[in-house]
């Protein structure tokens, strides 16, 4: 069992809450056999009005929400495409909380829905045991940033793992 070194308020204590790492993958429980599916994809786009017009006015999708992007400077719209949502993110070149340095339009992240929080945790452990960079987002989602995924697939896109219905969209693999 692999121990975790933790600190609280600069008090250094050993925490025996364990991360099992007997060998590569061998000590980590298998993930849930079923993967509920893709919850959402996030597209960085140049013109939010035009993108919303395409999805909603032309293709007939529903607009679930539109407002500030939250994690980065910019505005986003969440589009209902039936079994999943598409987040259209127009990153701004100034403003709060942070400016995204690379605002080139692209597929920014794919959010995979897991069956529950425990399933997310198992998949997170497996990613760490496989040597991938893993970060935790604000709503408990696991983020494999583009830097981690680029070496596997050759281009930069984030992968987000979150329990189905864990919260609203908008978690960017960019952050």
């Amino acid at each position: 069992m692999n121990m975790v070194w933790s600190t609280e308020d600069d008090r250094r204590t050993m925490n025996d809450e364990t991360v099992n790492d007997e060998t590569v993958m061998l000590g980590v429980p298998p993930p849930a056999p079923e993967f509920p599916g893709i919850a959402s994809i996030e597209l960085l786009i140049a013109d939010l009005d035009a993108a919303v017009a395409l999805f909603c006015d032309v293709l007939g999708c529903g607009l679930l929400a539109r407002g500030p992007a939250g994690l980065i400077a910019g505005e986003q719209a969440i589009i209902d495409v039936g079994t999943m949502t598409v987040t259209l993110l127009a990153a701004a070149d100034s403003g709060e909380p942070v400016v995204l340095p690379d605002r080139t339009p692209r597929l920014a992240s794919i959010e995979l829905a897991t069956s529950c929080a425990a399933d997310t945790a198992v998949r997170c452990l497996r990613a760490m045991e496989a040597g991938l960079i893993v970060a935790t987002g604000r709503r408990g989602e696991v983020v494999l940033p583009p830097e981690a995924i680029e070496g596997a697939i050759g281009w930069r896109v984030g992968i987000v793992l979150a329990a189905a219905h864990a919260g609203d969209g908008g978690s960017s693999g960019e952050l």
Partner: protein
Amino acid sequence: MIAPHLPPLDAGLVVEHEQAHDAFAEALEHAPPVVGRLFVMLQRRLIVESIAYVQPVNSRIDQQVLTPAPRSFLTETHELRMEGANAVFRHLDGRAEMKRIGAIELVISSATPYVFHALLEGPAPSGIDMNPGMLRAYPFDWTPEENMFMHPPGRECPALVEGAMDLAMNAPAPACVRAAYLTFAMLSIHPFADGNGRTSRALYMAVAADGLRLGMDWGALEQWAVDRTGYIGALQAGQRVERYRGEDMNAAAFVEFGTKTSTYGAHLCRARLANMAERVAAVSEARGVDIRQATIVVAVQLYRVAARSQLAPLSVDADDLDGVLEGLISSGRLEWVLRPPSMRTRLVPDEHGLVDRG
């Protein structure tokens, strides 16, 4: 133009730093030699990853994994950065050994920035020749959203680097202060076309080495990689001016960050070493193998799938290592398997590796 000033540091932090590193040195010196080599094997990998900044598997500073898996799925750029960082570590290790035997007085020398940069940029990780070992001749600016700070013109760099190196090598201040100061100064001067972060982090190691009993700060750089936000924040806290002006800049926040993270890293190293010793003892007892065999089993666990070359540092004698491996394989405790392609790198391209079968 002048190099930034060398700031003072709270004496209590210096004492804490010294105590933490002494306690770790004591623990390492008293650990069974083979367990000590196991620790060095893992920690060296983490330091190389940290110099290269390929990012750690876990970036939670409040819950750090004691035995993180090796980074995998690396890009070509990552691999080339690792190759350069590995060469830098070998250089540092060699200099520390030369100092230990009395052949040189200090690990750091006035040539060190250029040597490090040549080693780091020699493999051309960005795919472009960035003049390894040479200072830049042209201006360097960030995009405004990345950083508003403007570095000095290329023509000023030689004198600024010389001034910063002079303070880092000769000022009457603790090595941990001078080491972090030099990193701050080099990151502010930004004297190379590329590779400034890697070179500056490696320079911290070179200066810090001269103040430590072990001749190596095993803890700091891993913490800088885990707490990347703190690292950038401490750097930018001292650069609250529009453009480089050494007299208006303040390395204090970075020096404090460097010293605190080094102290914390030493505590983590001690916990990591103790954890390894416990694991080796537990494997030895549970499986009825001697401590050398148990150490190799734990090393295989740490690598998840261990190439033969990765286990070499555990033994001073290659034939002896092969003998131990044969015994563990023939008894069914270890087994050769194909290494996942994601783990095969330029440094360790082996197709096959060992896994622990219990």
